[in-house]
Structures are given as structure tokens and as C-alpha cells.
């Protein structure tokens, strides 16, 4: 019942927000909701493995991602408030913003815990809808275009994925399974006809690629990042991508023990490598900070896809990576939002000399650069290292070297632009003295990056246990 209650609460809260139209009310209610979500994560952690309201199960992977979501929703709420204070966009829009934020969080939570493919699918569809509203928040042409593209393409993608699911259910019917419950599917998957499984997996992969932001439908996600308000971008490229990942991961767990696993791995490697390569080449043309981070998300999702194809150690690395990437990328987006306050633009060419203008922010950017390019002491280094270890263990030497090469390119591009932002000569006719940024706004970022380092080098036992049980399928 818990989750149903949770959904009910979220719907009530969002509708209240929508109706009452008060700034303070927004804050209180949203914070209340975030608190509920955290409570839910805690509850799910305590009642690990229990099935709730028929279609939901508190399994390890869900718990991990939901915890990530809880943490990020705190920070995102905080930064949304800052954002809305700085970009006044009318009370109506603000209410829509908060309402859809609430719904987005709740539907993502649902997607994490769903144990029934159709239910999960419904939740994912819902996230598309609400995130589109959020992307459209600024009501600009660009925002509209981005929202439209995202909504359209990912709905088509999701539809394709749904066809895959239908197909799966069709074959499962043949084996006398009436529903799309994942446990049962996993049990009978061995006996299914591999070709059907392949078709299913292919359709689902392509369909959810829009959500996870990997090749082939990665393009719209990138656009969405560009137009969305930065707290929303932080969400899109972290928790929302995790939703897409989960969608693929769920199906992967079903096919993991069937005969097509090699085919699946090959497919994942192709997708992952293509994604990394795509981000590397597109980054060379980048002119816009948020797009740069968006493409880096593409790269990291590619790494995760590759990792997923490498057996147990790979799974471990993949989940580690997705958690770390969520934290790091969110932190970077918050900071870039702060950068925006100074330069009033996300275009790289409009920025410069940030380290002098705002030293603390500069430190954050540097730390973020080191973290996102997976240089030690970032935790991402650990996960990528595990990926390479697994790659070598499976004798994918050439692939590993190719990926290393692409990483070098990516580091080059990131370094070029990040250090342009930090050190290049300041843009003309702007006086930055007027702007005073409260130092505490950067705490969230330091916390996130610090968390990544800490979890990377000295992960607490419960964390590793969660991951271990998540990959034991």
C-alpha cells in the first residue's frame, strides 16, 4: 500500500500546488513531498525485498537509485528555489514547475520500484510528460522546440519499447504466463525462442535509448538539457537517465541467463562504443556549456552500456558508475547555473576568467572537471578502472584502447572549455563586482563531489551490499 499512498500524496500535493498559487505554499508543500520521498527511500531500505501493492518491489537496484533520487531532489529543490528567485517567471509558471517536479519525482520513484514491466512502462511514460513541462518552463522558442522534440521522440521511443514489451508478453503467454511480472519472466526466459527475445530486447533498447540518452535516440536528450532550467537539466541527465537505464537493465536481467546473452552483450558494446564515439566527435564542435555536459552524459551512459556487457564485474562497475555519475553531473549543472548568474549566458565564448570573479565557484568547476573526466581522486575513476579491468579480462584489448583514446579526446575538449571559462581573459563590458554569490550555494556541490570521492575509495558496507544484491540475478 505504501507506494499507492505515496502516489496519492504526490498527486494531492501537486494539485494543491497547482491550485493554491502561493510561493510559500509551493516551498512548504514541495519540501514536504521531498521529505516523504526520502522517507519512502528509507522505508524501502528497511523493507528490502518486500513486494508492495502488487506491482512494486523494494529491490536493491531500485533502492539505490531511489536513494540517489532522494539526495538529488533535496539539492535540486534548493537550487530550483534559487533559480526561480533569480529568473522571475510568474507565479503560474512557478506553480506548474513545482507541481510537475513533484509528479516527476514520484513517477521516477514508481519506475524504480515497479516489478511489472507494464507498470514500469507507464511510469516512464509519465516521466516523459512531466519532464516535458519542466523543460518548457522558460517558455522561450528554444525551450518549446526542445520540449517538443523531447516529448515527441521519446514518446515514439517509448511506444517502440512498448511494442517490445507486448511482444514479450505474447511469447510469455505461449508459456502460460499471463502477466509481465519480471520474476516469472526471468524464470521462463530460458525456454523462450531466442529470436523473439532478441526482437524484444532490440525494440526495448532502441525505445528506452531516448530516456537513457544513448545511441540511437540520444539526440533529443541533449537538446532537452540545453533548454531546460539548470536544476531540471541536473535531473534529466541523472535520475531520469537512470530511469532509462533501469528500463533496459530490467529486461537485461531477464535475458541475462538465456542463450542470447552473447548477442545482447555484443549489442550493448556496439551501443556503448557508438555513444562514447558520438559524444567525443560532437564535443569537438561544442559551443555551449550545458550541451557539453549533456554530451558527457551521453559518454558516461555509453560507458555504462559497455560495462553492462562485461559480466558480473561489469555490472558492479555499471551501477557504481551510474551512482557516481549522477552525483557529479548534478553538481556540475548546479555550478553552471551559478556561472550563468555572472555571465548571463551558457555560451562558452561569453565566459571567462571565472576563477578570479568567483574563486569558490572556480574551485567547484575544477573539482567537477577532475571528477567528470574520471581522474583520481574521483570515484568515477574507480568505476571506469573496473570497466577497463573487465574489458581486459575478456580480452577486448583493441576496444579498451579505442575507448581510452576517445577518453583522451573528451578530456582535451573538456579541459579546453573548462579552463577557458576559468582563466581566459574576461569578456568586455560586464562588471561582475555587483553580483554577490552566497558561498553556501556551493556547499551542495562540494558535498556531492566529496560523496563521490568517499564512496569511490571507501564505500560503506551497506552500499556495496546493495550493489552486490542488485547484480545477483
Amino acid at each position: 500500500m505504501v507506494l499507492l499512498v505515496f502516489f496519492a500524496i504526490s498527486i494531492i500535493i501537486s494539485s494543491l500546488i497547482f491550485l493554491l498559487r502561493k510561493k510559500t505554499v509551493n516551498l512548504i508543500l514541495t519540501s514536504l513531498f521531498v521529505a516523504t520521498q526520502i522517507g519512502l527511500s528509507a522505508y524501502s531500505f528497511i523493507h528490502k525485498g518486500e513486494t508492495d501493492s502488487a506491482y512494486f518491489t523494494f529491490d536493491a537496484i531500485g533502492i539505490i537509485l531511489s536513494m540517489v533520487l532522494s539526495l538529488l531532489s533535496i539539492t535540486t529543490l534548493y537550487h530550483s528555489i534559487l533559480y526561480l528567485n533569480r529568473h522571475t517567471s510568474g507565479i503560474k509558471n512557478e506553480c506548474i514547475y513545482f507541481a510537475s517536479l513533484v509528479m516527476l519525482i514520484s513517477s521516477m520513484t514508481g519506475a524504480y520500484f515497479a516489478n511489472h514491466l507494464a507498470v514500469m512502462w507507464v511510469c516512464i511514460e509519465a516521466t516523459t510528460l512531466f519532464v516535458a513541462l519542466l523543460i518548457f518552463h522558460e517558455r522561450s522558442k528554444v525551450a518549446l522546440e526542445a520540449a517538443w522534440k523531447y516529448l515527441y521522440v521519446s514518446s515514439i521511443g517509448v511506444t517502440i519499447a512498448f511494442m517490445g514489451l507486448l511482444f514479450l508478453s505474447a511469447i510469455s503467454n505461449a508459456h502460460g504466463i499471463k502477466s509481465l511480472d519480471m520474476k516469472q519472466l526471468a524464470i521462463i526466459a530460458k525456454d523462450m525462442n531466442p529470436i523473439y527475445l532478441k526482437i524484444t530486447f532490440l525494440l526495448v533498447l532502441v525505445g528506452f535509448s531516448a530516456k537513457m540518452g544513448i545511441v540511437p535516440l540520444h539526440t533529443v536528450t541533449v537538446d532537452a538539457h540545453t533548454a531546460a532550467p539548470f536544476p531540471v537539466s541536473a535531473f534529466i541527465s541523472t535520475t531520469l537517465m537512470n530511469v532509462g537505464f533501469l528500463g533496459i537493465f530490467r529486461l537485461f536481467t531477464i535475458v541475462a541467463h538465456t542463450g542470447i546473452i552473447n548477442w545482447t552483450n555484443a549489442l550493448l558494446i556496439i551501443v556503448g562504443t557508438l555513444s562514447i564515439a558520438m559524444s567525443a566527435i560532437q564535443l569537438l564542435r561544442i559551443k555551449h556549456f550545458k550541451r557539453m555536459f549533456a554530451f558527457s552524459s551521453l559518454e558516461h551512459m555509453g560507458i555504462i552500456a559497455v560495462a553492462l556487457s562485461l559480466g558480473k564485474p561489469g555490472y558492479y562497475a555499471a551501477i557504481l558508475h551510474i551512482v557516481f555519475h549522477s552525483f557529479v553531473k548534478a553538481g556540475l549543472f548546479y555550478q553552471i547555473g551559478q556561472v550563468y548568474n555572472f555571465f548571463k549566458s551558457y555560451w562558452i565564448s561569453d565566459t571567462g576568467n571565472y576563477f578570479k570573479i568567483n574563486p569558490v565557484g572556480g574551485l567547484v568547476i575544477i573539482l567537477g572537471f577532475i571528477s567528470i573526466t574520471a581522474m583520481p581522486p574521483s570515484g568515477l575513476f574507480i568505476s571506469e578502472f573496473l570497466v577497463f579491468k573487465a574489458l581486459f579480462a575478456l580480452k577486448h584489448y583493441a576496444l579498451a584502447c579505442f575507448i581510452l583514446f576517445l577518453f583522451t579526446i573528451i578530456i582535451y575538449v573538456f579541459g579546453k572549455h573548462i579552463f577557458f571559462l576559468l582563466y581566459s581573459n574576461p569578456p568586455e563590458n560586464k562588471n561582475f563586482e555587483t553580483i554577490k554569490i552566497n558561498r553556501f550555494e556551493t556547499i551542495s556541490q562540494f558535498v556531492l563531489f566529496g560523496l563521490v570521492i568517499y564512496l569511490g575509495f571507501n564505500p560503506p558496507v551497506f552500499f556495496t551490499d546493495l550493489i552486490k544484491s542488485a547484480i545477483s540475478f
Partner: protein
Amino acid sequence: MDILLFRLIVLVTIGFFLLPKKYLYGFALVLQLIIITVTSLWAIKSMSSNEPIKIIFSYIFHLPIYIIIDRLSAFFILVINFTMLTGLLYASGYLKPYYAKKSSTEIAFHFFNYIWLHLAMLFVCMFRDALSFLIAWEIMSISSFFLVIFESEKENTMRTGLKYLIQMHIGFAFILVGFLFSFQQSSAAFSFDGLSTYFFTHRPFFLFLLFFIGFGIKAGFIPLHTWLPHAHPAAPSHVSGVMSGVMIKMGIYGILRVLTYIHTDLIPIGLFILSISILSGILGVTLAIIQHDLKKLLAYHSIENIGIIGIGIGIGIMGIALNIPVLAVFGFAGGILHILNHSLFKSLLFFAAGNVYSQTHTRVIDQLGGLIKKMPKTAFFFLLGALAICGLPPFNGFISEFLIYSGMFKSLHYGDLQTNLVILGSIVGLVLIGGLAIFCFTKVFSVVFLGTARNVNASLIKEVGNNMLLPKLLVSVMILFIGFLPFLIIKPLGNVVSIFVKNASLLQTTSVSLTNISISSLAILIIVSGLWLIRKLVQNRSKISYGPTWGCAYTGANPAVHQYTAASFANNLGELAGSVTHIKKNFISLTEEDIFPKGQKFETHSSDTFELNLVKIPARKILAFMKKSAVFQTGNLQHYLLYALIFILIIFLLSVFQFI
């Protein structure tokens, strides 16, 4: 206790960002002194004992990371500590002008990185487990990168720094691949010690090559050196001093560390190291001679000295391979001693160059001149460094080269024909390097410090403060100590060498020679001072007069213009070595009919052919190609859907035709 202190330091470094500007330097100094005391004590302990020290430092994934200090690590730790200390002392004076310009966060960040560079280098020497080693290695690169771009307001600094970072990362990738490959091949421990299993079961050359490239990029062997001549000039002088003094030695450390695990077919490895080292030595100094930038010139000399070190190590390896103990012992002894020596005189030279820069604000050699009258102390230190780096007696550079020489000459008798020829080649190489070094440093010292001033603001120049001279004094004392009392360092050196060669006691045989050397050096000293006195007496009786330099009956000479320039000094050698130096001269040659020629402009540019053909052009090509192929984000929704369709189709076909 000490380990707790050490861990504490690692955490305390955050404190830099909380302190106000004026306490930063003191804080850094205190931290560093603590680090130095702790680690040096460990180092000295392990130097004296046969067993390496083993302490648990921390945990990754709940697995212990050990600090393991054997004699090799201990040696490097001591070198690092000394040079980093002098560097920080020098910084106190050198950074003064920057305090006004830079925000306190920037200064704090600089010192933070300096301390972390120090820590990272220590870790590199102390960690054996591959993962922690790699982490330390990368942290070393990153912190040094941030040190290099300290003066980011100057143009090109940023680009140079980025190049440096990327090349370091490539090196890192090679090392990573090396470790992973050996780990995959021989499922031994994922650490240096794990390598030995691989090397026992496989032919070592391939893996060694991977590691050599990875570490060689850091060490700056030609043709892997291309970051070095740019990063050093860009960095502030105390940083270039420590980078060239110790950081590039970490590459040597890595190579040595790997070599300790290789015991089978060493001959190709030895030959490889030897040939590439001779190449680096000769080409490095040749390219140094034609440079116009003082610090760039010194940077190329680092390459040369890495070459000398490499020659030592190379013949050492050959000695082990061919079972000629004398060659092995003296080769390694010379190479390792030269590591220490180079760290001394190179940092000295860079600090002196820093003095020059801080006073004249230019690094272009041909704009300087006559500085010895304005800053005699600096000139003296530079001369000392120059004599030392040229390997002239009675200074430390000579001692290490002497060891290498005697090893080579002694072993001539034992080797077979090929060995003899190899040794002959190395001898000639070493001799040429020495000669070229003399050529180069007579040039640079004279043009910078002697003669008359060439640039205009000569009047503003004055000697730097004592806080910038004190560290030089420390270094010079070390240089003279090694130069005049070499027999004292033989024993500890032997300890280090014993890691590679069993019977390092052979080294003792040379102590008589070294004693003789120090006596003769003393004799020179006595004779010089005696003559000085005699001349005083004689000249008191006879009359001394002063006048302008004898212009060979041409009285119109303007000394500032007509004296010999660095470019013209380097010219004849540049012509001999035209193929590598690529000197371009821009000028309009006089024709028959202009009897009264107008004012003419003449300038020369030199380019590093390796850098051009091995790094610049390929990198540009690759990037251009990739950029051209980046056409997928068209902004057109139809295309985006088309990708999905095509993707499905391709996968479908691949599956149908059984490709995947």
C-alpha cells in the same frame, strides 16, 4: 605515530582554502617540513636496513594500501624532499610580486597543488599496488598541471598546460594498459610485484615497451619529450625547477622499478634504452643550443640529462644481461648518481633563470647581457650550475659521468665484438654530449651574464633578495660536497645499486680514484688561489690601467650591438646539425646594386622536427577528421528518427548474417 601524522597531513591540506593570504606560505612550509621529516626518517631507516619498510597507509575497498620503502624508493624520497624544500624556499621570494595580482584562493590553490605534487611524488615512490600507484601518478600529473598554469593570464600558458595534461594522460593510459595487460596475462597480484610473474612466463620486451612509453613521456625521452620544452618555460621558475629537478625523474623511477622485475632476455631492452638515451642526449643538447628562450633551453637540457641517466641505466642493463658485473655496477651507479646530480644543478639553474626573469621580465637570451655586474651572486650560482651540468671537474656532474665512463672503459676488455662496439658508441655519445653541453653553456652564460647589456631597461635591474639566494646556496653546497668529496657517497650509492646488481661491492674499488680526484680538485683550488695572491703582489708593483675592449682597430664599435649573439654563436653548429634543428632565417639578402643598403632585419626560428612530425601534425589531422565527421546533431527531428530506423535495420542485418 609517524604514519598517523602523515595521514593527518593529507587531510590538513584542505586548510589552505580556509587561511588568509599572509599565512599561506608559512602553512605550506610547516606542512612540508613535517612531510619531509617523516618520510626522510623512513627513507634513512630503510637505507640502512636490508628489509624494506612496510606500513599500512590506508584502505581502498577495505583492502590495505601499503607504503613500501626499499632502497630505491628511499633514494628517490630523499632527492624529492631536498629539491621540493629548496623549491618552496625559493618560492617565498619568487612569488612575492604575484601576491598583489592573485586572489588568496589562487595562491592557496597554488600552494595546495605544490604540497600535493610533493605528496603524490612520495606516494609514487612508496606505493607498489598498481591501483594506488596509478592514482598517485595521475594526482602528480594533475597537481603539476595546475602549478604550470599558475601564470594563466599570459597567452599560450593555458594551451601549453592543456597539451601537458593531455600528454601526461596518454602516458598514464599506457601505464594503465601495461598493468592491466600483465594482470590479464598472468593472473598474479595487480601490482608491481605481480609483474614479476608475467616477466618470468613471457618475453618481457612488449610489456616493457608499454611501460617505457608510459614512463618515458614523463621522463622526456626523445621522441616522447614534446611536452617538456613548452611546460617548463610556461611554469613559474620554482615549479620548473622542481618539475625538471625531480618530477621527470619519476618516469625514471618507474622504468627502474619495472626493470627490477625483469630477469630474462635483457639484451634487447638494454640496447633499446641505450640507443634511445644516446639519441635523447645528443639531440636534446643540440636542440638546446639553438633555443632563444632561456628556460626552454634549460628544458631541453633536462632531456639531455635524462639521456645521460638513460645511458647509465642502459649499460647497467647490458652489464647484467652479458654478465659483466663491472659494467652493471658502474652503469647503474653513474645513472642513479646522475639522477641526484641533475636534480641539484638543474633546479639551481632554473632558480637562477627565475632570478633573471624576475628582474628583466624577459627570457629571450639575445635581449639579455652584462647581468653579472648587476646581479653578481646570481651569475655566480648560474656559473656553478653550468659547470656542474657540463660535467666538468670538480663538480658533481663530473662524478656521475666519471663512474659511467670508468664502467664502460673497464668492461671493454670483457665484452665480445658487438658489446665493444655498443660501448664504443656510448662512449662517443657521452663525449659528444659533454662537448655540446660545454658549447651550449659557454654560450648561454656568456650571452646572458657577460659582455654588455643588450636590452633597454638595464638600469632597473638589481640583485635579488637573499630569500631567493638562500635555496641556491643550499643546492650549491650539495653540489660542491658531491664534487669535492665524492668518496663519501659511494657507500650509500652502493646500497641503492645493490637492488639491481648483487655484488655492488665492486663500487668500492673506485673509491681510490675518487679520492685522487678530490685531491686533484683541491690542488687546482690551491693553485688558483695561490696564483691569485701572486698576481696581487705583482700587480701591486706594476701599474693597472682600464680601457674599452680592443675593437681590432675599429673604434666605432658599439659593444651592445657588435658583441657576439647567441644566435650567431649557435649558427655554425646549427649548420652542422641542420637536419634536426630546422633553423629558418628570415632576411633579404643584399644584391649587387645596393651599395648603401637600408636597415636590414634578420631573425631565426627553430622548430623541433620530432614535435612537428610526431605530435603536432598527426594530432591536428585526427582532430580535423573527427570534427568533420561530427554531423549527427542536425537539429532535424526527422533525422533523429531515421537514426533509430537505420540502427534497427543494421542490427537486424548483423544478426541475420550472424555477425553478432
